[in-house]
């Protein structure tokens, strides 16, 4: 009798120990599965160039939003006495523009535009492109043909000109430029999503999910999209840099953020007239654009290497 009791206790202890061990193991393995979000973060964390990029972006964001409080000169303050001041003159670290407005203060304040447009327009693109591509790829047939022919029309234009055309219809402004850039990226991303879905759709686990009676939306959302998404994350990471660059180009041409607001592109468009005599007005905002785009690109490279080491260059 006593013996029987003993074995029962032993089994119970064993199960508990096993469960605890499994829990420990799961905890230890968290973030080690290639492709999981934590894994990507960990890889990016261990890439020095990417961390430099993250550092620059974070510092730029903080400075941008605190610039009204920490800058000696407000970004809109006109100081006629010091117009065209060279860097370092009268406390203006990076000089002044043609109205005597402090360039450093303007560049820092303007950081919010370029950086936010990059992120939001890419998000906008993906929110529309992922379902479109997924639906086209999963259902095939007439739905696929309709969606793809529709996207063909979008792809008949280079991205920046499509954005200009849309900006021209929507009107000009910060929100509208996000939409314009967002729409212009949809075709490419949706096409890529569709191609991924087509290759994932035939896998066994999809068949398994179908055979146990999962609903179609559930199969698409839970089984297909997560397995097909990694190339898209790569384009997304790269897209932020591209969209930032496109945003400043649009502003430069006069279709983006409008002049009293200090956006880097329109600061350059304005400084263009003074390039002969006051080159600092042209050089400085450009360096800000380049640093931002470079940072986003370095993060993008690290994300790509983490997701697909084969693409490492």
């Amino acid at each position: 009798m006593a013996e029987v009791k003993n074995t029962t206790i032993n089994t119970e202890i064993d199960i508990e120990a096993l469960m605890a061990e499994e829990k420990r193991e799961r905890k230890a393995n968290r973030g080690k599965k290639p492709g999981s979000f934590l894994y990507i973060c960990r890889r990016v964390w261990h890439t020095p160039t990417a961390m430099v990029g993250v550092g620059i972006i974070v510092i730029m964001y903080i400075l941008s939003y605190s610039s009204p409080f920490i800058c000696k000169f407000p970004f809109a303050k006109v100081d006629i006495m010091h117009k065209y001041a060279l860097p370092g003159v009268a406390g203006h670290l990076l000089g002044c523009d043609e109205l005597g407005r402090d360039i450093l203060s303007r560049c820092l304040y303007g950081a919010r535009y370029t950086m936010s447009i990059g992120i939001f327009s890419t998000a906008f693109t993906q929110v529309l492109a992922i379902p479109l591509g997924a639906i086209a790829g999963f259902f095939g047939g007439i739905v696929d043909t309709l969606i793809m022919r529709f996207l063909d029309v979008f792809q008949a234009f280079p991205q920046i000109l499509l954005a200009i055309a849309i900006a021209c219809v929507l009107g000009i402004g910060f929100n509208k430029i996000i939409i314009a850039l967002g729409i212009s990226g949809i075709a490419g991303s949706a096409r890529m999503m569709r191609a991924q879905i087509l290759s994932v759709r035939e896998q066994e686990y999809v068949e398994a999910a179908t055979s146990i009676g999962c609903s179609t939306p559930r199969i698409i959302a839970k089984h297909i999209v997560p397995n097909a998404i990694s190339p898209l994350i790569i384009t997304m990471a790269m897209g932020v840099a591209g969209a930032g660059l496109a945003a400043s180009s649009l502003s430069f041409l006069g279709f983006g953020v409008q002049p009293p607001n200090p956006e880097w592109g329109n600061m350059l468009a304005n400084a263009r007239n003074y390039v002969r005599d006051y080159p600092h007005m042209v050089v400085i905002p450009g360096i800000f654009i380049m640093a931002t785009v470079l940072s986003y690109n370095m993060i993008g490279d690290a994300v790509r290497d983490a997701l697909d080491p084969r693409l490492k260059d």
Partner: protein
Amino acid sequence: MIRYIIRRLLALIPVLIIVALAIFTLMYFVPGDPATIALGDTADQATILAAREAMGLNRPYIVRLAEYLEKLFLHFDFGVSYTYGTVVGDELMNRFPHTLTLAICCTLFTVIFGIPLGVRSAVKAGKFEDEVTRFLTLLFSCMPGFWLALLLVLLFALKLKWFPSSGYKSAKYFVLPVLSNSLGSLAGITRQTRASMLEVIRSDYVVTARSKGLPERKVIYGHALPNALIPIVTNIGTRFGFMLGGTTITETIFSIPGIGSYMITSINSRDYNAVQGSIIYLAFMFSFMMLVVDCVYAFIDPRIKAQYTRKKRKAAE
């Protein structure tokens, strides 16, 4: 192959019709009145109303759309520019040579320097030379094109006075536009070439070619490069198509009267016919280039050519 090309050309037609339809509809809803634009702000109400009637702006949307499409696709007539009173089709034709010259020069520059640089970088992967190339290409691909253009003007036109800063009279005038337009794509092509060369350079056939004693040059340019070309050609083709549609920013900065600057001025002045015309032209050029790229694939890769012919055989059966 020819059958494939014809099929692709035919497939272009519906795309262009939808582009025309979409852009006409978009422009229809853009705020602003063409009659007011054509006559200027000073015109009185009665003249404007008469002009609206004469221009046919009071007719229903669907009638105007049908007329526009009919003129466009049956007579290749883009209409008349509201602001200048010129025929849009002629204007596009006059501007096309400038854009074409610029696009060809830029593409040649990119190909001539980009591919060898990328190949060299891949061959020397990990060495100092490669690191320098990678750093520089990354830097150039992050530079906004218009900023680069301004810096080039500042250095070569204003400070050193080697090249003129704007205009289009002789070859000298094209140096800065070409440079500013292609340094970015040069960086892109170099990176792309490097990446795809790295992929093929360790393949068995490259090892075989080396082991049978071929000179290294021949191994790289004769055996490895052709197999790495497909993504590079796609990239070059896309960029060329893009440039044919007008290198908007370069043309604006260097005041070259090409398609791109035409489009920007007509958008700014709400010149509907000119905008529609240049956008449709652009869509055609871009799609056409994509078709050319697909045909080039067939010349580079016999396997792709075999696919096209197989399709043909299947269709014949």
